[in-house]
C-alpha cells in the first residue's frame, strides 16, 4: 500500500479497496518503524490522523470525496497548524502551539487530507542540509550517511522513504527542489503568489513559496490543485484563476522548446550529475522537444544577491521572536535588554544568528544602498535574463543541484560551499518563477534531480513535461533499500 502514489491511493480509497483508517495506520506504523533512523518528523499526530481518517472514510462513503480525501499527508513544520506544535525547526518555537491554521493547511484539510504530523526542517528554513534543525539532522533514506538536503529535508526524506505519500514544503532558495533532488522525489515550487503564504512562518517574504513534495508529477498536480489560489489574507498572493493541473498532464511535448542555460553546465557541476542530466535531455528530444542552448548571463550573481535579500528580510521577519508573547523566554531576565538578548541568544541556532547578523548589516544605515538596493537591482537583471529567455523558449532545463547528496557534516565548517548547493535553484526564487525537480538517475547510488523552470504561472506546462518524462523513465519509482 505504501508504495502507491497519491493518485493510486485515491482510487483505492474511492473503490473501497482499503479505508483511510487502514491506510493511515499503515503509514503511522511505518513512521514508528523507520523514523527513529531517519528523524524526518518533529511531531507525529496519530490521534488526530485517525480521527481525520475516519471522517474521511465517512466522506468517501457519502460520495463527497475529493482526490485528496483520506490521503495521509505530512506538513513541513513551518506551516502553522492549529492546536499542534509548530516549531519551525527551532528551539525558539519548541513550545509554540499555533492558535490558527495556515491557509494551505486549512485548504488541504477541507480537501480531506489526513495529517500524519509535522516534518523536520532546517531551523526557520535556513539551510541546505537539514543540519541546522534544533531537532537534529534528518538522514537521507538512500544513504543514511548523507544529508537529505534542505530546508524541507524532513518532507523529502519522509516521501522518499514512503513514510507519507505526500508532504508540503516551502522553497525560498531551493528548499523544495534541492531536497527533492537529493532524495529522489518530485518537488514543485510554484510561481511566487500562486500559493498563499498566510500561516507559513516567514523566512524571506519576497522569496518564500509553498508547494507539494510527492513521488510523481501527477501527484504534485493533484496536490497543487488544492494548495493554489488567491488568499485575501496574503497581499502578495495573486488573484488569478487556478487551472486544473491534472487536466494538462498529457498535453503534447511535440515542438516544445527547452532551453539549456550554458551557465548551468559549467565547471561547478559534478560531471556525473551532468551526464545524468544530458541523458534526461535526450529523453525529452525523444518526446518531441526541441533543445536550444541559451544564456542567463547574470547567473553567477544569483547566490550573492540571494544572500543579501534573504538575510535582510529574515533579520526583520525574525524580530517578533523576542520572548515576550510566545516562544522561548530565558529564565529570570534581569531587565528588558537581558530578556531580549538571552531569549534570542538561547532560542536561535548559529545559522539563524549568522543570517540575522548579515541581514541587519545589509540594512544598516550607510550600507543599505551598497547591499540591499544593489541586490534589488541585480535581482531585476536576473529576472530580465529569464524574461528574454522565455521570449524564445518554453521551458528551461538543467540540474537541480551541482552534486548528489553530500555527507552529513561535510560542509558544516564552510557556509559558502553549503550556500553554493543552491546555485541552480536560487535564481527562480529571485525571479519568482515556477520550477520543479524530478528524479533523473543516480550517481554512486544517490539520486540526481532534473530541474525544469517555467514562465510565470506555467505550472501546468511544467507538470506536463515532468509527467511525460515519468511515463518513459522509472527513476521516480526506485525505492530506497531498507525502507
Amino acid at each position: 500500500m505504501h508504495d502507491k502514489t497519491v493518485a493510486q491511493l485515491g482510487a483505492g480509497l474511492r473503490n473501497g479497496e482499503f479505508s483511510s483508517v487502514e491506510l493511515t495506520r499503515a503509514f503511522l506504523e511505518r513512521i514508528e518503524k523507520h523514523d527513529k533512523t531517519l528523524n524526518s518528523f518533529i511531531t507525529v499526530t496519530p490521534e488526530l490522523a485517525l480521527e481525520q481518517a475516519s471522517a474521511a472514510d465517512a466522506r468517501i462513503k457519502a460520495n463527497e470525496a475529493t482526490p485528496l480525501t483520506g490521503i495521509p499527508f505530512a506538513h513541513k513544520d513551518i506551516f502553522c497548524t492549529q492546536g499542534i506544535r509548530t516549531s519551525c525547526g527551532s528551539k525558539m518555537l519548541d513550545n509554540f502551539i499555533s492558535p490558527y491554521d495556515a491557509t494551505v493547511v486549512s485548504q488541504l484539510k477541507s480537501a480531506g487530507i489526513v495529517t500524519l504530523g509535522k516534518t523536520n526542517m532546517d531551523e526557520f528554513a535556513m539551510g541546505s542540509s537539514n543540519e541546522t534543525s534544533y531537532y537534529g539532522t534528518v538522514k537521507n533514506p538512500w544513504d543514511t550517511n548523507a544529508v537529505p538536503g534542505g530546508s524541507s529535508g524532513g518532507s523529502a526524506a519522509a516521501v522518499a522513504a514512503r513514510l507519507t505519500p505526500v508532504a508540503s514544503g516551502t522553497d525560498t532558495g531551493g528548499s523544495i527542489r534541492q531536497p527533492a533532488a537529493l532524495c529522489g522525489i518530485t518537488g514543485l515550487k510554484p510561481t511566487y503568489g500562486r500559493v498563499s503564504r498566510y500561516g507559513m512562518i516567514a523566512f524571506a517574504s519576497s522569496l518564500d513559496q509553498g508547494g507539494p513534495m510527492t513521488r510523481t508529477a501527477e501527484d504534485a498536480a493533484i496536490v497543487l490543485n488544492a494548495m493554489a489560489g488567491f488568499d485575501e489574507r496574503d497581499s502578495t498572493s495573486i488573484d488569478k484563476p487556478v487551472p486544473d493541473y491534472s487536466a494538462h498532464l498529457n498535453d503534447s511535448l511535440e515542438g516544445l522548446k527547452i532551453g539549456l542555460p550554458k551557465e548551468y553546465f559549467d565547471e561547478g557541476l559534478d560531471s556525473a550529475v551532468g551526464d545524468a542530466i544530458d541523458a534526461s535531455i535526450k529523453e525529452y528530444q525523444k518526446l518531441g522537444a526541441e533543445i536550444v542552448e541559451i544564456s542567463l548571463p547574470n547567473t553567477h550573481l544569483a547566490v550573492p544577491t540571494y544572500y543579501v535579500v534573504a538575510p535582510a528580510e529574515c533579520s526583520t521577519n525574525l524580530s517578533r521572536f523576542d520572548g515576550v508573547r510566545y516562544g522561548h523566554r530565558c529564565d529570570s531576565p534581569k531587565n528588558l535588554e537581558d530578556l531580549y538578548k538571552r531569549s534570542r541568544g538561547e532560542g536561535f541556532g548559529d545559522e539563524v544568528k549568522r543570517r540575522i547578523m548579515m541581514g541587519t548589516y545589509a540594512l544598516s544605515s550607510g550600507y543599505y544602498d551598497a547591499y540591499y538596493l544593489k541586490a534589488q537591482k541585480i535581482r531585476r537583471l536576473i529576472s530580465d535574463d529569464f524574461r528574454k529567455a522565455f521570449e524564445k523558449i518554453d521551458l528551461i532545463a538543467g540540474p537541480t543541484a551541482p552534486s548528489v547528496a553530500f555527507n552529513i557534516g561535510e560542509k558544516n565548517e564552510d557556509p559558502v560551499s553549503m550556500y553554493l548547493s543552491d546555485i541552480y535553484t536560487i535564481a527562480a526564487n529571485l525571479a519568482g518563477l515556477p520550477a520543479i525537480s524530478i528524479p533523473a538517475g543516480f550517481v554512486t547510488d544517490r539520486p540526481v534531480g532534473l530541474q525544469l523552470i517555467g514562465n510565470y504561472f506555467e505550472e501546468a506546462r511544467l507538470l506536463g513535461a515532468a509527467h511525460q518524462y515519468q511515463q518513459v523513465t522509472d527513476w521516480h519509482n526506485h525505492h530506497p533499500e531498507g525502507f
Partner: protein
Amino acid sequence: MEWEVVIGLEIHAQLATKSKIFSGAATAYGTAPNTQACAVDLGMPGVLPVLNKEAVRMAVKFGTAIDAHIAPRSVFARKNYFYPDLPKGYQISQFELPIVGAGHLDIELEDGSSKRIGVTRAHLEEDAGKSLHEDFHGLTGVDLNRAGTPLLEIVSEPDMRSAKEAVAYMKKIHSLVRYLEICDGNMQEGSFRCDANISMRPKGQKEFGTRAEIKNLNSFRFVERAINIEIERQIDILEEGGTVNQETRLYDSAKNETRSMRSKEEAFDYRYFPDPDLLPVELTSEDIEEIRKTLPELPHQKKERFTNSFGLTAYDAGVLTSSRELADFFENVVISSGNESKLAANWVTGDFMAALNKAGIEITKSPVSAEHLGGMIQRIADNTISGKIAKQVFEAIWNGEGDADTIIEKKGLKQITDSSAIEAIIDEIIANNPAQTEQYRSGKDKLFGFFVGQTMKATQGKANPAQVNSLLKKKLNK
C-alpha cells in the same frame, strides 16, 4: 541677542476606520486589555498584513484637502526596533515614498493676518500597543488593543516662529481632520497628538540651529507650554555660550519642564526597507479624483461663504467655522431664525458659546438646540422680545423650560409695543419726576438715561427700547 525660534510639528492623527490598518480587529477605544488584538496584531508567526483601503481613502482625502501631491505609487516600509508593545519588532510605516507629498494650509495670526504653513508630507503607519508599568508589581503589562490602529503622520515644514503659531497650526489641522471625518480628534484618548521640533537662531540668520524634538504632546495647552519652556531652555544654553544637543526630549506637564530621553548618538538605526509583505499602493488620477469629489466644504471655503452670503465679519466667520459642529449648528440657527444671520452670529459667538464654555459642555451636547435658539432670535427680530429680555429667555431654554414662544407666553415676557401704553407710562414718570425733567430740559442730556431706566423698570424691561427712546425724546423735548 534677539533670538528666533523655528518650529516644525509632526502630528499623529488616528484615522477613524472601524478596523485596524492591517487586520480586521476593531479599533474602538477603552475595551479590556488585549480583547481587540487578533493574531495579526499579536505578531503571531506566519501572519501577514492586509491593507485597509479605508485608511488609504482617508489619507488621500486629507492630501487633497491641503492641495498636496498624492503619490501615484507609495510604499510601506518596516521601521525596525525592539519594544514589548511593538509585537513584530518593526512598525509598518512609510518612509521614502509616502502617500501624501507636499501641501500647505493657512493659519490666522493674532493680528488678523494669515500665514501659509507648508506640509512636507503625510504618511500612513500603524500605532504600537501600550506598555502599562503600574499595577504589575515591578513587571510591565502590555496591551495590544491599540497596536495596528491606523495613523496619519502629518509632517510640517519648519515654518512656525512661535508657540502660538504652532498651536494655531495644530488647531487648524485638528479642525480639518474633523471636518473631513477622518479622525475624531480626541486628544485625551490620544487620537490626536504631536511631536515638536524646536531650534533657535539669532534673528536674521538663515541657517537653522540644532533642534530638539519633544515627544508626545497631547493637548494644545501642553504644546504651547512645552514649546515656550523649551525656547527658554535653549536660549539659556545659547546665551551662556553653550550648544544645544540634538536629542529627543519628553515634556513633563506636572513639572512644566522637558527632559532628555535619548541623544543623537543613542538614536536608533531603524533599518527602514520596503515591507515585502505589502504591495505598493497604486492610485490612478481617476481614483484620486473620485476621492476628491467626496470632500466636504472645507473650513476656508465655509468661512468665505459665511462672510459672503451671511455678511459676517471675517473674525466671526473664522470663529464659527473653527469646527464643523459649530458651523453646522450656526447654519441651523440661521435657518430657524428666518435668516437673521447677523443676530444669529452674535448670539452663537456670544452668549451661547460663553454658556457652553462656562458649563464645560461640547457643542454636540448643548442643552439648547439650534432650533430653539433660532426660534428665540426670530422673536428678537420681530420685536416680540427685546435683546435684554432674550437673555432671560435663553437662560430658560438652557434650563429646559421649552422653546422661546412657550417661555415668553408663560412668563409674560412679550414686549410692549403699544405706543399709547408706553406713552401713558412715560407721562406718569415725567409727572412724578419734575426736578429731573426740569434739569433735562435745561440741557442736562445725561439724564435721558435716567428716564429710559425708569421706563424699563416700570415695564419690567418689556417695553420696546427703540420705541421708548423715540417717545421719551418726543415727550421730554416738548
